């Protein structure tokens, strides 16, 4: 068998696409949240931050609040005071988030929502109360009981409480019709996001993950309407870009990065080392709810039901009697991937405790994998490049799948 050589996945986009990508990267790296400040300057009301992984942004939108996804400080934020708040054996995202709070970057936010992701994010909610007592700090306890009459009722009451808290801070009062419209707005957004993920599955050379990732990051800080427009703009640009040609790369699922995000350089490194990322967990809030949320009927119930019934399988969600890892195997099959890259943040309990069970499922299904850890501020990727390159080469050389697998 002829050995296929990994090649650099860099593209030279046209001017309009290049300008768009530059804007996206600026948004992702703008720790001053200029776009949020601009939105407020244009007469926007409250802006409320939220930590990974999932919050129902539709509810915030319906009350005129700008949901702002806080994804830590990445690799270009100098941690000056944040390290004094955390021991060395705790992941990086809380210390960079505290840093952003302390250095004034988050002054434009009127509050923060801390979803029930893990103990670290949970405890950060209390730290926020102590450090920023004048701001809203809301712990969003999502149910692990998925019975509509039990967990659903609890979740609905929690959302109603969040709604009241926002109103107390100056947001519009809850209005069912407004929520219905917001659900429709986010459904349009979800549809476009999925369209791009579908395009990436079919033609990953058209939609490099390093670009898609930046788009999703932009969606964390922009109003959803603007984000939706950007998604369309990007889709049109890449579809008409004839310079993007397929290369001989291994199709992989990257999993484990649902909270703390890898630095952009790491994603690019994976692509440059011979991997087409055809499925991932990055900035997962955009895809947490699979498919559209019902628009007919009581909108709050629809929001609750979507969470109970249509959430993705995730290490932070109790899966009852299902087999751990089976969802990952299905994802691999659906997107025609040839292997899995476990890319988890160091000290991320949910991801790392889940990993051995997922690996067992992959082994049973004969799916190759490799694993490494990162911190959001990693700056050196040579070791990962070698590891991922070797993994991609081994897939291409020895994979039992004849040729590239096809997405299903």
């Amino acid at each position, binding site marked *: 068998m002829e050995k296929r050589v990994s090649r650099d996945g860099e593209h030279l986009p046209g001017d309009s696409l290049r300008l768009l990508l530059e804007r996206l990267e600026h948004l992702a790296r703008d720790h001053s949240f200029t776009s949020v400040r601009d939105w407020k300057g244009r007469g926007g009301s409250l802006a409320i931050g939220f930590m990974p992984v999932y919050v129902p942004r539709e509810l915030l939108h319906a009350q005129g609040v700008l949901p702002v996804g806080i994804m830590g400080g990445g690799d270009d934020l100098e941690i000056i005071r944040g390290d*004094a*708040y*955390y*021991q060395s*054996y*705790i992941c990086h995202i*809380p210390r960079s988030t505290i840093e952003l709070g302390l250095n004034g970057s988050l002054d434009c936010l009127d509050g923060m929502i*801390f979803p*029930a992701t*893990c*103990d*670290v994010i*949970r*405890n*950060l*909610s*209390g*730290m926020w*109360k*102590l*450090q920023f007592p004048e701001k809203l700090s*809301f*712990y969003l*306890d999502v*149910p*692990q*009981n998925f*019975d509509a*009459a*039990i*967990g659903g*009722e*609890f979740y609905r*009451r*929690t959302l109603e*409480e969040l709604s009241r808290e926002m109103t107390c801070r100056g947001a519009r009062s809850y209005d069912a019709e407004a929520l219905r419209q917001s659900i429709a707005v986010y459904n349009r957004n979800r549809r476009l996001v999925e369209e791009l993920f579908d395009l990436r599955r079919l033609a990953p050379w058209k939609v490099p993950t390093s670009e898609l990732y930046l788009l999703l990051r932009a969606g964390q800080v922009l109003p959803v309407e603007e984000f939706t427009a950007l998604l369309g703009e990007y889709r049109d640009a890449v579809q008409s870009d004839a310079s993007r040609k397929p290369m001989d790369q291994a199709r992989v699922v990257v999993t484990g990065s649902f909270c703390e995000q890898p630095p952009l350089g790491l994603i690019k490194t994976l692509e440059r080392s011979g991997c087409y990322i055809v499925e991932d967990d990055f900035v997962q809030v955009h895809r947490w709810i699979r498919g559209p949320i019902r628009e007919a009927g009581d909108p709050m119930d629809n929001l609750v039901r979507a969470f109970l019934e249509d959430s993705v399988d995730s*290490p*932070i969600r*109790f*899966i*009852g*009697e299902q087999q*751990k890892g089976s969802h990952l195997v299905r994802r691999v099959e659906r997107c025609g991937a040839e292997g899995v890259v476990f890319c988890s943040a*160091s*000290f*991320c*309990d*949910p991801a*790392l*405790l*889940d*990993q*051995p*069970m997922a*690996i*067992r499922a992959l082994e049973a299904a004969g799916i190759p994998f490799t694993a490494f*850890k990162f911190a959001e501020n990693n700056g050196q990727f040579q070791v990962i490049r070698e590891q991922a390159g070797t993994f991609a080469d081994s897939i291409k050389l020895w994979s039992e799948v004849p040729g590239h697998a096809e997405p299903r």
Partner: protein
Amino acid sequence: MPNRDEMPLPARAEAAKEDSQLRQKRMIADHYRRLAQSPDSGEKNVYTFVPGNLTELIRSFDLLPVLPEINALQSAMRGKSRDYIALAEKLGHSEDVCTYVKCDLGMMKSGNVGPTGERLPDPDLLLLSYTGCFTFMKWFEILREEYHCPVAMLHVPYQGDGLITEDMRRYVVDQLREKIIPTLESISGRRYDEERLREMLARSARAEDDLVAVLESAKHRPSPIDAYFGGVYYIGPIFTAFRGMEEAVDYYRTLRQEVEERLRQGLGPVTPDGAMGPERFRLVVEGPPNWTSFREFWKMFADEGAVVVASSYTKVGGVYDTGFRHDPARPLETLADYCMGCYTNLSLPRRVEMLSRYVRDYDADGLLINSIKSCNSFSAGQLMILREVESRTGRPGGFIESDLVDPRYFSAANIKNRLESYLQMIDQRRMGATA
């Protein structure tokens, strides 16, 4: 010259123990023996966790509780955890994650031999009381894949705002009524007997009264107890299999009498190396102890005359000194309140308030944090807790780091050095105050 592993260990003196310690040791050993014999006796068991344990409910169905955290710490105290953790890591579990989980898994893979040297039974049910610790969910997902047994999830909401609302209570009660009780009925083959549960809850409250009296005896000078190292013995029966049982009522009555007698005589705590010398320092400690070098760890304190007068670890299985008692008049509601009130289910501000109150009420010299690498539930935010408590009480804080059951993270010299430095700082402040 023999290598380090081959060198004979120095003979270790038998640890001194109070009568109550011997008694609780017997109780727990008897429970382990009963578990070991359960495949023959036909008794069924429920694996569950210490925080938010539903012992009265479990035992009202004549089911026997098994607490994996207790198994893990027992393994550590018997010097077994190093190999168990190594085995789990060999099987692919990350060095970054909770060592209780890895120790438990390694123990299971090594034959599931409990502290009495007998094999523990496989679980008939994993009762996932998801209280105050995210890792619990992952832990039982891992065990379920090993044992292929049912899991019952009880999601206990976190006190994000530092209070229990009626909505939170209703959520837990609904789960108890609709999910947990039917599952226990199915596993045990018995009907739910609320009257029996009420009787057990009444016994719990009596034992809790005595436990609180014991813990609060440390407000006296000298303290007759050590509320951290000694405290783990005192909480043993009520945190494990005996809350709601007559044995627990008897144990805590006896323990209280014993402590009150020490108080009358003006005696300090008994340590494994005998009666402690003069009380020189009074500390509040936050965080679990290290179990692999428990005795050595305690000795570092005792040698300096440092007695722990209050601790948060002794509240992980229930906070009783703020007035909560299991209430037989509201059986399911009281279980819900108990679960939600456990220490690691409290918000950071509530934890700060509690620790500050301990420093003041117990007239402590300061707060010492033993930060545990394995336990994000406890550890994330502790540096802020330290600063807040210092600022509210005006008394200095100290910080040491170790782990629950991984001996690789117990650096005796480092801990001793930090502890001594902290105590010297307290001394210097005292001298400054009197100068």
